[in-house]
Structures are given as C-alpha cells and as structure tokens.
C-alpha cells in the first residue's frame, strides 16, 4: 500500500506509545500518532491536552489544544495548572514536543533563532515555550518531532526552551529535573535514540529509501550511528486505514488547510462524525 511521508511519521509516533501510557500531546502528527496507537496497539492509552481535557475520543480532527474535540467524549475536563501538576506529580508517561532547533543531547529551542542578533533582537522570533518546557521537564519520556535539516540539528541550540539531557551524562538529574528525558527524535528521514550513558543522540533507523550518508549530511555534529541501523517500519495497513479516517480531510497528512473553504470544512466535520464514531467503538 502506498503511503505519504506524513503517514509514515504518524506510524512512527504511534510506535512510541505503549498500552496504558498517559500522554501529553500537541496538535498535528504527534496527536494523530497517539490516536492511531490508541485505536490499534494501545487501547488503554489516555491522551491529555494542555487546556485541561483528559481522554478525548473525538469524532473529528483536533485543530487546537483547546479545540472543542478536546472535550468530546473525554473522561475529565479540568484546568491547565491541575493537569500540569498531575504531570509534575509523575502521572504522565509520554510527552510529545517539537521545536525549531535540536542539539545532540535532545535540548530543544522553540523560543528564538538568534542569527546575527541576540535573545532580545533575534533574527527569528518563535512562539515560545508554551507547555513544552513543562512537558520536557516532567514527562517520564519525551518524543521529539522535528524536520531533519542541517540548520536545525546543531551542536548546541541558541536557547534551551525544553531541556533534553542538557550537557549529557547525569546533567538532567543534577539539574533536579524529575522526568526521564527524550526517548526518540522522529524526523522526516530517520529516527534517533540516545546513548544510555553519554545521553548523546545516535542514528537508530532510517526511513525506507534513505541512506545513512543523507542523514549525516543534515546533522552539524559528528553523528554517531548504531552498528546495525534499522529501517523504520512502514505504516501497517491498519495504521494507514485509521490515519486516513482520523484525518480524512488531509489537514495534517496532506497539507489541505490552505485549500479549505468554509463549506468544505463543515462537510468535512459532518462526514467525519459517522466514520470516527465507528472506529472508536472498540476502545470504550
């Protein structure tokens, strides 16, 4: 079965979820991945959204961390500070975070690209931490999603918004961070994991058709490579089927937001109701 890169990334995100995991997810491909996991291999997973919604099973695509689908068929609506307190307490197994830059220890920058400027007058100002710092601090493991590009994969990020392993080894523990740190970096070309001792990222798997050299060319430090680099498993037919139902409008997997009209949007919502209701039946 043919699949798109975005669909492969959904499957790769889903592969990181274990049954029973409590997950902090942002919108887009990571949430699609978490939902695909819930509807296949991890039926007891609980997805939480920062606005304060726990366990939604929406019959439409989620368009924001406080979009109405976040409260749809959920088990609890509460407040932001309460949800993050639950995470700080240690109830959250997985956090999904992104950024504009990442370094060899999995530290993420979503605050500012300094360029020739500085923090106060950067070349490119990004939105900021939001909840990413909190998730990276306290989730038992974090999954990072970021495109593989040389300007993004740096020896050291300009600004650590979300802590990875800081300077490596036991730096996280010494800083007093309760969470376990990054478990994987998922990119458009490959997946990285982290050395258990040095905490440095290494190439774990390449996506089908991608070479190790291609990956190394897009990383600006001397990348370590696993002795037996794997090939990222392509999406299964079941994962593809569910991904295409969850994002039937192709908002995240086909970049269709820019072509969307109001009438098409309302139709998309109407059509998704029955098809999503059907696939959620098995996980109640």
């Amino acid at each position, binding site marked *: 079965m043919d699949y798109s890169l975005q669909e492969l990334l959904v499957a790769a995100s889903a592969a990181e979820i274990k049954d029973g995991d409590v997950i902090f997810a942002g919108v887009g491909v990571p949430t699609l991945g978490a939902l695909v996991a819930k509807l296949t291999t991890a039926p007891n997973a609980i997805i939480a959204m920062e606005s304060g919604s726990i366990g939604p099973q929406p019959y439409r695509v989620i368009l924001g*961390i406080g979009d109405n689908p976040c409260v749809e068929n959920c088990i609890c*609506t509460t407040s*932001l500070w309460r949800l993050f307190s639950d995470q700080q307490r240690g109830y959250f197994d997985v956090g999904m975070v992104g950024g504009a830059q990442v370094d060899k220890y999995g530290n993420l920058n979503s605050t500012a690209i300094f360029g020739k400027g500085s923090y106060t007058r950067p070349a490119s100002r990004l939105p900021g*931490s939001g909840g990413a710092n909190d998730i990276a601090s306290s989730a038992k493991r974090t999954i990072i999603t970021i495109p593989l590009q040389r300007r993004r994969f740096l020896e050291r990020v300009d600004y650590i918004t979300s802590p990875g392993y800081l300077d490596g080894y036991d730096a996280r523990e010494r800083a007093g961070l*309760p969470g376990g740190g990054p478990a994987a970096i998922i990119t458009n070309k490959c997946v990285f994991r982290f050395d258990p001792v040095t905490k440095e990222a290494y190439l774990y798997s390449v996506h089908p058709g991608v070479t190790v050299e291609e990956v190394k060319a897009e990383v600006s430090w001397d990348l370590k490579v696993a002795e037996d680099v794997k090939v990222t498993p392509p999406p299964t037919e079941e994962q593809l089927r569910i991904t295409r139902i969850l994002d039937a409008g192709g908002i995240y997997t086909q970049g269709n937001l*820019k072509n969307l009209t109001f009438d098409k949007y309302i139709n998309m919502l109407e059509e998704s109701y029955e098809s999503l209701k059907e696939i959620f039946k098995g996980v109640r």
Partner: protein
Amino acid sequence: MSVVEIDWKKKNDKRMTLKEAISTFVKEGCSIIFSGMGGAQCVAQTYEIIRQGVKNLTLIGDSPCECGDMLIGAGLVKRAEIAWCSYAVAGLGNNFRRAIEEGIPHPIELEEYSNYTIGLRLLAGALNIPFMPTKSLLGSDLPVYNKMIKEMEDPYSGERVALVPAANPDVAIVHVSRADQKGNAQIEGFSSNAENMARAAKHTIITCEEIVSTEEIMRYPNLTIIPQYAVDAVVELPYACHPWNFPYAYAYDITFHAMQLEAFKTREGFLKWLDEWCFAFDSWEGYLEKVGYGRLDKLRRIERRFTRSSL
C-alpha cells in the same frame, strides 16, 4: 500582597456592556490577563480594548493568541509576561514577531515563563502567597534570560526547585458559558487557568455566552468555577471567541481564522484588518453582523452534533 477592592464585588447586579466594563476597569498602564487556551480565546474583549486604545498595558498570560498578538500589533502593550504567543494550526503571531524582531510598532519588554509556571504564578496570586516552587524551568535557558525566576534548595529535602513570583493582575477578563448577574460563573469544559486568574486579579470581568438566573446557577453548583465575591462586572457576550471555538457552544471557524492570519502577515494587512473589522464598528455586534449570523449559526449547529450541553 494585593489589596482587594470590594465595592464592585459587593454589588447585586453587576451587568454592564462590554464598553462600560473595559472603560471602567482597563486603565492605561494596568496589568491584564485573559482566559482561554488553544481555543476559547477572548477575541471580542481584545477588539474593544483596541477600539478604546488603552495604552502601556502589561500583558500577563500563558498562551495568548489575539489578546497577545493583536494588542501588541495595535501598540498597546508595554510589557508581556507570557509563555507563548502565536495562533497554532491556523498561523503565526506575526505582530509579536515584528515587535521582537524589528521593534514594530514599538519594542516590548518580555519576561518569559512556561504555561504551567504562569499557571503557578496565578495560583500563588490566588492563594495570596508570594511565590510558588516548581520542578519546571530547571536546567533550561528560561531562568538565564528571566531574572524573576529564582532557583533554590528545598529547605526540607535539599532538592532543587525553581521559584516563580505570584501574579496579581489589575484586571482579569474571563469568558465562561454562563453567569448570573452577581457574577457566579459556570463553565462547561476545560477552564485553563481561569479560576485562579479571577481570584488573583484586583478586578475581574466575567463575560459569558448567556446570563442566567441565580436559581439556574444553583441547579448545577459544581459547574461554578468562580463565585460572585471574586467578580466585579458581568457582560453577556455571545460568540465572543469567534473565530475560535467555545466548548459546547460553537465550532472553530478555521477558514475565517486562516484568512485573518493571512492578512496579519504584513503590517499593512494587519492595520487594514483593524480598520475593516474593529474600528468600523462601535461594538462586537457589528463584527458579528459582518461575519454573518448564517455562518455563526452553522458553527453552532455543527457543534451540537459533536458536543451537546447538558444544561
């Protein structure tokens, strides 16, 4: 420690128009915070502040969208104590970017936190204590560039914690599902940081989709997130979040939002948007008429298919 002014809060009928509420409580140089998180944003309230041109605001917030980006673009924000400013799926906060990258329309002071630690600042403010310790922020660059974040060892266990200062904004604007005329505010769905910002602020303006009787509030007292004694004013303000969603009320108008944010990509486009969608009208009703009640009704009806209010 903040001094709570109680005269407004003791009134039995706190109903006002949005225009009155903003002109009464939102003063030049004040600090202000808005409810909402990743949706349910205070858009009508933002437009009214822009219409009244209240300057030199200190914006406090977790992840403000219109109430951050548009107030900054309108030149009304002197200082922002926030965790994030953008619009997520529909687009970027280009006014915020222009202010930081190019000083347009003027530079702003920035004091950055994370969503949770803004929540803890408000919790500390609501508890009337001076700060809150947390396990967030440690090891990151947030404390490097924001000297208000302190680190210390827990005097009991010796563990490292970061400290964030209490926030007691001059004004909190909180949008809820329904409230009575005394300000008992009920919400269906998530509350982000609303209950704490209302208690922490010196003045709290409740805006609601619908004003109901106190008897109606009493039928579901567990839905009251803010009791009347923490409220100064009540404004009935339907569709206040458009183009954003509001849980159990109306769906996200993402195609309208995409059009709006396309306009915000340039300074000229933003200013033209303000002329056409904000300054052209005397009140939010003008905006809603321009959007079209047919369109708004479609957003309300489609939402009923997915989430139905139990009230």
